[in-house]
């Protein structure tokens, strides 16, 4: 890792970063690698990484960022010259915007960038905060990053799941949440890749590196930058954690429908204390007479949230809803341990089940008027599979 190349081609980057081949791709961020030498490397290299090689300690990282920014600013001017080299394809243009985006990362303070906890090493050294916002201001791109929210004193982070569902063998993610500094490997589950990160409130841009290609997820919100490069984008400013109680439901309804459940109806119901929908509806219509605000309830109550924030309506589902396929069975549930042949030594011992298959009831086809059901449950540290034989009535 120590020996970063100083020649132009960047094949060296240890994390297997590849420069973007397509026009729209972002530039590759460097990951890992020795600190010092790569700094120099960066200063010359055109395929820059907005990424700062994270190797070494925190100190070096930040310094690199600072240099990075400066370099970016310089290179911004001289982009033309950097196109030469293996990247061809007008790659020059491809890289810079990355640098532009860097400021989002660099612009933030340390804790914001490292907030991902990617590098446990003490990145969060507040003394290292540089005049990020200044840099960011000059190079802002089309992403309307709200610096005010960034500078808010709240430490609230929002755990967010990033998903990539479009296949690939190895998928990494990087974005403003880590300063585009490092490509984070995503966790694979079948054909989907996920990664969870605590995001600071605000807007974030991110992009995926799928099999060494920079890609954005077409099914998720995107934003384009000045150069026309498209990144994915997520706004967690207004995220409210689910608390599961009444207040949450009310606020959720309010946020969605722009109104709170009718207070006069709630008052009335509380006074009358009548349980049940019908009775309370009757009471409401009674109270309509005096011309209370409750009047519209029965008429338009179809789609307004009621006292608990729940919605009831008369809408019939579309016809195609009836012909749709039911949701597919998750593949984990197909591994039914009762279907595996028993071991010879001890017929009572079954293979250890996956925990996701617990508490699911399996059944066999009814044969000889007998239905056989099986369920695996956990008791402390052991798993018990119970098979029920039940006769069916004709």
């Amino acid at each position: 890792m120590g020996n970063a190349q100083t020649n132009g081609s960047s094949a060296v980057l240890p994390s297997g970063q590849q420069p973007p081949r397509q026009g729209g791709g972002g530039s590759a961020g460097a990951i890992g690698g020795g600190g010092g030498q790569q700094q120099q490397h960066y200063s010359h290299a055109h395929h820059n990484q907005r990424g700062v090689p994270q190797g070494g300690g925190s100190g070096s990282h930040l310094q690199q960022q600072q240099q990075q920014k400066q370099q970016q600013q310089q290179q911004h001017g001289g982009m033309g010259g950097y196109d030469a080299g293996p990247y061809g394809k007008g790659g020059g243009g491809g890289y810079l915007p990355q640098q532009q985006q860097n400021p989002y990362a660099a612009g933030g303070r340390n804790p914001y960038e490292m907030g991902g906890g990617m590098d446990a090493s003490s990145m969060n050294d507040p003394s290292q905060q540089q005049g990020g916002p200044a840099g960011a201001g000059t190079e802002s791109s089309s992403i309307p990053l709200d610096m005010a929210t960034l500078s808010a004193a709240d430490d609230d982070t929002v755990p967010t799941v990033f998903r990539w569902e479009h296949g690939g063998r190895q998928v990494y993610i990087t974005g403003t949440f880590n300063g585009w500094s490092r490509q984070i490997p995503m966790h694979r589950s079948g054909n989907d890749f996920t990664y969870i990160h605590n995001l600071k409130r605000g807007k974030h841009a991110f992009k995926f590196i799928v099999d060494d290609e920079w890609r954005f997820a077409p099914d998720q919100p995107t934003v384009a930058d000045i150069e026309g490069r498209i990144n994915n984008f997520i706004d967690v400013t207004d995220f409210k954690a689910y608390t599961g109680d009444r207040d949450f439901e009310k606020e959720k309804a309010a946020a969605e429908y722009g109104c709170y459940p009718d207070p006069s109806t709630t008052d009335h119901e509380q006074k009358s204390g009548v349980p049940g929908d019908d009775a309370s509806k009757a009471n409401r219509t009674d109270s309509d007479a005096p011309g209370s605000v409750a009047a519209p309830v029965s008429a338009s109550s179809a789609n307004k949230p009621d006292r608990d924030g729940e919605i009831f309506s008369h809408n019939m589902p579309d016809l195609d809803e009836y012909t749709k396929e039911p949701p597919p069975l998750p593949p984990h549930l197909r591994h039914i341990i009762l279907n595996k042949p028993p071991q010879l030594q001890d017929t009572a011992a079954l293979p250890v089940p996956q925990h996701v298959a617990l508490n699911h009831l399996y059944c066999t086809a009814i044969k000889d008027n007998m239905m056989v059901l099986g369920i695996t449950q956990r008791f402390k540290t052991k798993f018990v599979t119970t098979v029920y034989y039940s006769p069916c009535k004709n």
Partner: protein
Amino acid sequence: MQAAPLWDPTACQFVGLLTVTDFIDILRYYRRTNADVSTLATRSITDILSDTNILNTVLVRHIPRRGGTAGVTTASNAPTPTSNISHHCTFLSADANTTLKHACRLLHRNSLDFLPVILPDDMRVLATITYTTILEHLVTNFREQRRLFDDTVYDLGIGTYHDNVITVTSSQSLADVLHTMHVNGLSAVPVVDEKTKKILGVYSRSDITFLATASDAEDAVANLDLSLDVLMSQRRTDVTTPDALHTCTVGHTLQSIFEYFAQWKFNRLIVVDDEERVVGVVSARDLVAYFLDERGTS
């Protein structure tokens, strides 16, 4: 399957344990009375259990099981039918917090072979305890303590020996064997050669399960007339762990019995002499009872 708890949906509780013994008893009843076996398919279990005919003809037991002398109680004797019914009606179970000792006592004092462990909160059956499983636990935990176990089982008085040992010959029919087992409350009998008295094998209760694969009920009942040597020569393919013959000698120490159990997990050991004649039987129950110190109180 060794034992299956029976659930009563109307009473919403477990009411009994269905074991292979019940299956055997049903077969014997139908054979003895030559009743129409096809009705078996349509009768519910409660129906069968409460049928006094069955209880009186087939479920006559020799009580107490071992030691002492006791007359065979017959149907005319009032206590017997009720005790048989109660055997089926009271469902004894343990829950997860029961101590091992208490569970052993339940097993022993009620002459049970299986004790289900039931979680009372959600009526979940966790497991069924048998003497063999208890022995397994004892063996895995106490194997290392050599010093206690250097006496032979014969000296310790564990097991049944000499005249108390019940054996059958290979020429007997299955029905006879089952009857013998029932009357004496045995779960298995050693099968000996008639002339030489050498041990040929062990026939245990669970070996009967192959009869269930008979195509219809009449065949199953007819199978009871086969003689043992025919049956034992059939290869067992339905059960993967048949009760095999495990033997030991009078001179084996308790420690060596433990070691043997750790390897083979037998239900019972046949004690043989140098000429392979049956001398005694040591069962898992005997071993556990020794540790429970309840020998002699059946």
